[in-house]
């Protein structure tokens, strides 16, 4: 029994647009027009969200460090990122001698394309999801691991020792932590019985999996947070671009718009990972329900699902930013030890526990 | 050990040393060829145990160089100043002490860089601060072409 008020269901809107397009042109062209519209919307959304996230990071970082952050450009400094973007666009693209030109130019695009493909399948509200595969979770994990190809290409083609070391470190790190990401997501997949993202959210209509799945879901959530921070080269795991050791690692030799791509892709990866955590563990756009029916649930339903989604994602992003600016950095061998000796066994044990609980029906 | 006892001990090891006047630390001038054996004894003898080389430098006295070693003991806390006199101005050379005190390796490179005194058997006799064709600035007959020190 679904208790979300139907006014917030976007499938009505999308069906209406589809019908009106098919009335005007042939079905093939209508589909093509829809692709173009969705592509444009996502491009704009991506760019605006990127700008906003960069601003948020700078403000959060500043407040943790006991200072104010950007506060001159625009009211409260909200146009700071736009000013930075204009500056980056005007910078000279320094060509590197002896660099592999094709790979050097392709690398930033690969990273952006990988994160773009992953964003397309995030559910923002009921009916507001571009790609709704029945292998949703699997698709996102597979596609975001394409980003590592871009990083390796960037490091290799820069023809610089620092970049190469940074890229190799990053490659080892990302490949190791993909395991933990996949396995921790698997716990909720076993609970919900499906990999399709919209189905997983619908199954949380009587409570979020982090509450319903008690111990194993909580463990999986924590492991997922750690592993995904390492996947996106952020936080205490950012030695691939460790400023104080390797002067920017794999993207040392990039300048101007190409550097902007790497920078933007890092923030959008953080968003993707946070929204994946929200979708799978915290209910996505589903409001906070306890059981079915009841006054509390009806009150919660009044807040639009889109708002729920962004607030939850925002909180997860804030947690990730918080521990980037608090902890020192791990060394590469400590990082790999963390994955292979600690997170992986915890994950395997967790999955066995989840399978057992699901069989017994010992979850809410 | 106090000053007098140290001087007496040095006389016993190596007779014929000169002891210049110094109010602060006992000073002894050792001939260049006996320097290594003397310093070896200073480091390893149980009563002396001069294991800490505080300072290694050289002074240019216009007709000779004087290489000065300030030695101290971390156990007994006595200090001594050992000097050797190098008369040769074209090719000044003295034995290295870098295998007795490891820190001497780098102080000797600095002395070579600034004075031109080379140290025999040094593991890596290269200049430390300046370029290879700079000359030896701390010598008194060094002409400063850029005339930064004008008087």
């Amino acid at each position, binding site marked *: 029994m679904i208790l979300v008020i139907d006014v917030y269901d976007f499938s009505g809107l999308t069906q209406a647009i589809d019908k009106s397009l098919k009335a005007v042109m042939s079905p093939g062209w209508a589909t093509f027009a829809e692709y173009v519209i969705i592509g444009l919307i996502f491009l704009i959304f991506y760019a605006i969200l990127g700008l906003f996230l960069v601003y948020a990071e700078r403000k959060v970082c500043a407040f943790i460090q*006991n200072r104010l952050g950007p506060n001159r450009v625009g009211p409260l400094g909200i146009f700071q990122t736009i000013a930075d973007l204009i500056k980056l666009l005007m910078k000279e693209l320094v060509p590197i001698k002896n660099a592999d030109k094709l790979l050097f130019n392709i690398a930033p695009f690969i990273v952006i394309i990988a994160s773009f493909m992953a964003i397309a399948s995030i559910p923002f509200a009921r009916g507001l999801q571009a790609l709704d595969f029945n292998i949703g979770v699997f698709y996102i994990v597979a596609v975001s691991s394409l980003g590592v190809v871009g990083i390796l290409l960037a490091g290799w083609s820069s023809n610089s020792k620092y970049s190469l070391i940074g890229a190799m*470190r990053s490659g080892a790190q990302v490949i190791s932590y993909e395991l933990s990401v996949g396995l921790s997501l698997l716990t909720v997949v076993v609970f919900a019985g499906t990999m399709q993202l919209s189905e997983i959210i619908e199954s949380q209509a009587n409570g979020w999996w982090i509450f319903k799945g008690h111990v194993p879901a909580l463990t999986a959530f924590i492991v997922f947070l750690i592993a995904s921070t390492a996947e996106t080269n952020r936080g205490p795991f*950012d030695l691939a671009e460790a400023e*104080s050791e390797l002067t920017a690692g794999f993207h040392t030799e990039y300048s101007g718009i190409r550097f902007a791509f790497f920078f933007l892709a890092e923030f959008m990866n953080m968003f993707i990972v946070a929204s994946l955590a929200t979708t799978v563990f915290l209910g996505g756009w589903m409001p906070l329900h306890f059981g079915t029916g009841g006054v509390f649930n009806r009150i919660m339903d009044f807040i639009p699902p889109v708002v729920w989604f962004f607030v939850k994602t925002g909180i997860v992003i804030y947690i990730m930013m918080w521990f980037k600016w608090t902890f*020192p*950095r791990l060394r590469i*061998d400590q990082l790999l030890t963390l994955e292979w000796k600690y997170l992986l066994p915890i994950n395997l044990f967790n999955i066995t526990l989840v399978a057992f609980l699901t069989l017994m029906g010992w979850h809410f | 050990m106090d000053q007098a006892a140290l001087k007496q001990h040095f006389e016993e090891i190596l007779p014929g040393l000169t002891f210049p006047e110094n109010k602060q630390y006992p000073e002894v001038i050792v001939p260049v060829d006996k320097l290594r054996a003397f310093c070896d004894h200073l480091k390893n003898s149980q009563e002396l145990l001069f294991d800490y080389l505080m300072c290694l430098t050289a002074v240019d006295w216009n007709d000779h160089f004087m290489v000065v070693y300030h030695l101290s003991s971390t156990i007994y806390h006595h200090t001594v100043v050992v000097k050797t006199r190098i008369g040769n101005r074209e090719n000044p050379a003295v034995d290295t002490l870098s295998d007795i005190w490891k820190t001497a390796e780098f102080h000797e490179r600095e002395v070579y860089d600034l004075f031109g005194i080379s140290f025999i058997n040094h593991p890596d006799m290269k200049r430390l601060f300046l370029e290879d064709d700079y000359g030896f600035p701390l010598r008194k007959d060094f002409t400063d072409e850029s005339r930064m020190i004008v008087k």
Partner: protein
Amino acid sequence: MQDEVVKNIILGEDDNYIINVGPQHPSTHGVLRFEVSLQGETIKKVIPHCGYIHRGIEKMSERLTYPQIIHLTDRMDYLSAHMNNEAVCLCVEKALEVEVPERVLYIRTILNELNRIASHQLWWCAMGMDLGALTTFFYGLRDREKILDIFEESFGTRLIQSVNTPGGLMQDIHPGFQKRITEFIKYFRKKLPEYDQLLTGNVIFRERTEGIAIMTREDAVQYGVTGPSGRASGLSCDIRKIAPYGAYPRVSFKEVLRTEGDTLARYKVRIEEMYESMKILEQLTDNIPLGDYTAKMKAVIRLPAGEFYQRVETARGELGVYIVSDGNKTPYRIKFRAPNFSNLFVISKLAVGYKIADLIAISGSLDLVIPDIDR
């Protein structure tokens, strides 16, 4: 021929990968170049190349009078500038057998300890930043600003005080000096435990520093490593205890010694030294005797012919000033035995077998200030 040259630059002997850390690098805190020979991520050899900031202070000093030399010594180890000044002043005063007033002794010692705390604070925040905890940089500098405000009020300058002269000080302290120091100590005593929790207790930090680069006492003595780096290996080398000067004989403080000798020990020694410095300040600040701030000296200072050596404990180790005088108003030869010069070269022994990330942690824990190495 071109390929030969290229091969020698990229691959050293034994076909190891050579990487240059520096001279411009965010972590070396000065211009210093490490030529690191790597096998994968493991360091096989580290060769430090210094000399990028060699200014010839010793040669310049041969043409300057003694009060003028003091202003050059500021620029050697600029974070313990006052202690460098004091070393030259003490050497000159010892040679001339001048008795400085009590007030001068107390003020000089107080300034020493304030400089030591400021220097250790800067070291702490830079070390955190090198290891990736970028927030510590701002917290450390915030506290250091309070000390710099005290200096600015009394002497007009922040980093380098330049207030020493042979015979005493060039000017007296501001009337609010003592009050501000007491306020600062009260403020700082609350902050240090907080920083301990933030960085020292952090699991990641401990993993990065515990057991890394152990320096034995034997190594410390052989390489002449003094100061907190030496004391972390159990070498008792505090000049304030061995050959006290200034007001140090009148205060009681502990010499902080540890025996582990790893990076964490060097870190902890400096944190504890800050506590000891505050203890010294508390004993001295309220008891500054009234009197002259300088002894009566001749207008032109000529040292008698002879040789004089003075040892002083700066924030990084033992500074030695060796003056050879021939009776003129300028020294015949002046030599500065710089603590950082000896502390630097022990890296080629300590870093072997560890990773690049550890090299940054090790050089941060040795607390090198590069202008002191090159003078």
